[in-house]
C-alpha cells in the first residue's frame, strides 16, 4: 500500500477542523498538534492535582462542618478533573506513568497560581472566586476544542467548576458581612490573589507565539488578552457586591473601549514563579513526590491481590 501523502492528510485534517468536526483519537493528526495537545492537557491535569494541595491545607481547619464538607467535595472534584484530563491525554498515546514522571521530575509545568501559599481561611474564598473564576473563563471555550476527548472532559469539568466558584464567593460574602477583622481578612485575601489570578491567562498576546497556531487548530478560541479583559470586567462588577476593592489603582472604566483599563502586570514575578522560584514551588512538588512514593506499596499490593484472585478463580 502506498504511503498516504502527508500534505493530503494535513489538508484533510485542517478541513475537518475548519468545519468544526471533532478530531477523534484514531484519526490522522499532525505530530505538532498531538504534541501541543499532550502538553496542554497534561499541564492542565497536573494543575488540578497540585491544585488540591493549597486547599487541602484548610480542610482540617474549616470554620464549620458545612464549610468542611463543601471544601472536601471541591478538592475531590479537582482530583476527578485531573483524572478526566489524564485519561483524555492518554488517548493521544502518552502513558499515565510518563505524565506522572514528568510532573514529579519537574519537567512538566503546572499552573503557577498553586505556588502561592494559603495563609488564611479567606484564601479559600478568594481562590474559589478568582482562581476558579479565571479557570472557568479559560475553560469554557475549551469545551469546543477540536479534539473530541479533550472537549468532552472539559464539558464535565466546566459543569463542576461553577459550584467551586459559587462556593468561594459565598465564603467571601459571609466574611464581608462579618466583624471588622473578618472584613480585613477578606480584603487581604483578595489583595494577595488578584494579580496572580490575572496572570493565569498567560503572557500578553504579542509574547505568546503559539497562540496563532493553536487558534488555527481550534485548540484555543480566544487570545490570552481577550480572556483576561473579560475576567477583569466581570470581577470589577462582582467585587462591588462584596463591598471590597481590587488592588489596582489603575482600574477604571474606559467608555470608548467599553472595558476596564487596568495596571501593568508584573511579568518578572510571573516568570520567577514559573521558573520554580515562587513561594511554594518546592513544597508543592515535594508533597506530590512524597504522596507518590508513599503510595507505591499500595499500588503494588493491589496488583498482587488482583493476580492472586485471578489465579484462585481461574
Amino acid at each position, binding site marked *: 500500500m502506498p504511503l498516504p501523502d502527508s500534505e493530503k492528510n494535513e489538508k484533510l485534517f485542517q478541513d475537518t477542523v475548519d468545519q468544526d468536526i471533532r478530531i477523534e483519537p*484514531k*484519526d490522522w493528526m499532525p505530530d505538532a498538534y498531538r504534541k501541543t495537545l499532550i502538553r496542554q492537557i497534561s499541564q492542565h491535569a497536573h494543575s488540578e492535582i497540585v491544585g488540591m494541595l493549597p486547599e487541602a491545607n484548610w480542610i482540617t481547619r474549616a470554620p464549620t462542618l458545612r464549610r468542611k464538607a463543601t471544601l472536601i*467535595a471541591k478538592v475531590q472534584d479537582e482530583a476527578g478533573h485531573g483524572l478526566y484530563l489524564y485519561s483524555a491525554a492518554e488517548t493521544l498515546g502518552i502513558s499515565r*506513568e510518563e505524565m506522572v514522571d514528568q510532573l514529579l521530575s519537574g519537567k512538566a509545568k503546572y499552573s503557577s497560581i498553586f505556588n502561592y501559599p494559603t495563609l488564611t481561611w479567606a484564601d479559600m474564598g478568594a481562590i474559589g472566586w478568582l482562581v476558579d473564576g479565571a479557570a472557568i473563563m479559560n475553560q469554557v471555550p475549551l469545551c469546543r476544542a477540536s479534539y473530541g476527548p479533550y472537549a468532552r472532559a472539559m464539558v464535565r469539568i466546566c459543569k*463542576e467548576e461553577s459550584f467551586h466558584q459559587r462556593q468561594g464567593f459565598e465564603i467571601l460574602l459571609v466574611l464581608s458581612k462579618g466583624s471588622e477583622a473578618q472584613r480585613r481578612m477578606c480584603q487581604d485575601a483578595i489583595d494577595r490573589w488578584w494579580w496572580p489570578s490575572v496572570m493565569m491567562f498567560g503572557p500578553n498576546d504579542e509574547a505568546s507565539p503559539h497562540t496563532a497556531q493553536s487558534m488555527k487548530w481550534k485548540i484555543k478560541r480566544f487570545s490570552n488578552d481577550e480572556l483576561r479583559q473579560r475576567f477583569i470586567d466581570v470581577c470589577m462588577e462582582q467585587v462591588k457586591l462584596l463591598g471590597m476593592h481590587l488592588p489596582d489603582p489603575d482600574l477604571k472604566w474606559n467608555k470608548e473601549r467599553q472595558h476596564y483599563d487596568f495596571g501593568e502586570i508584573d511579568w518578572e514575578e510571573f516568570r520567577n514563579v514559573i521558573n520554580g522560584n515562587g513561594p511554594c514551588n518546592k513544597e508543592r512538588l515535594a508533597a506530590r513526590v512524597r504522596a507518590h512514593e508513599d503510595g507505591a506499596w499500595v499500588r503494588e499490593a493491589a496488583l498482587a491481590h*488482583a493476580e492472586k484472585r485471578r489465579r484462585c478463580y481461574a
Partner: protein
Amino acid sequence: MPEQQWPLWEVFIRSKQGLDHKHAGSIHAADAAMAMENARDVYTRRMEGVSIWVVESRYIHASNPDESSSLYDPANDKIYRHPTFYDLPDELKHM
C-alpha cells in the same frame, strides 16, 4: 525494575433507566472490582448514573478511520433502505 502499572479500563454509564450505557471516559485499576469503585468515584459524583459498565481497554476492538470508506460508503447508494425513497400519493394515510 520499573513499577508495573495498573491496566486501563473504559467506563460506560447509563444515566437513567431506559437509556443506553454511554462511554464516559477511562480510569486505571488493578482489577474489575476496583475499576468499578474508581469509575463510581470519578464519573458519578453527582448522580450521573444508575448503572456502570467497566471493561479493560485492551479488549475493545475499534474500527480504523482509514477504512471508513469501505465500511460506511456502500450505504450511500442504497437509499431505497430509507422510507422516503418510495413515491406514494399524499392521500395515502397512516403509513
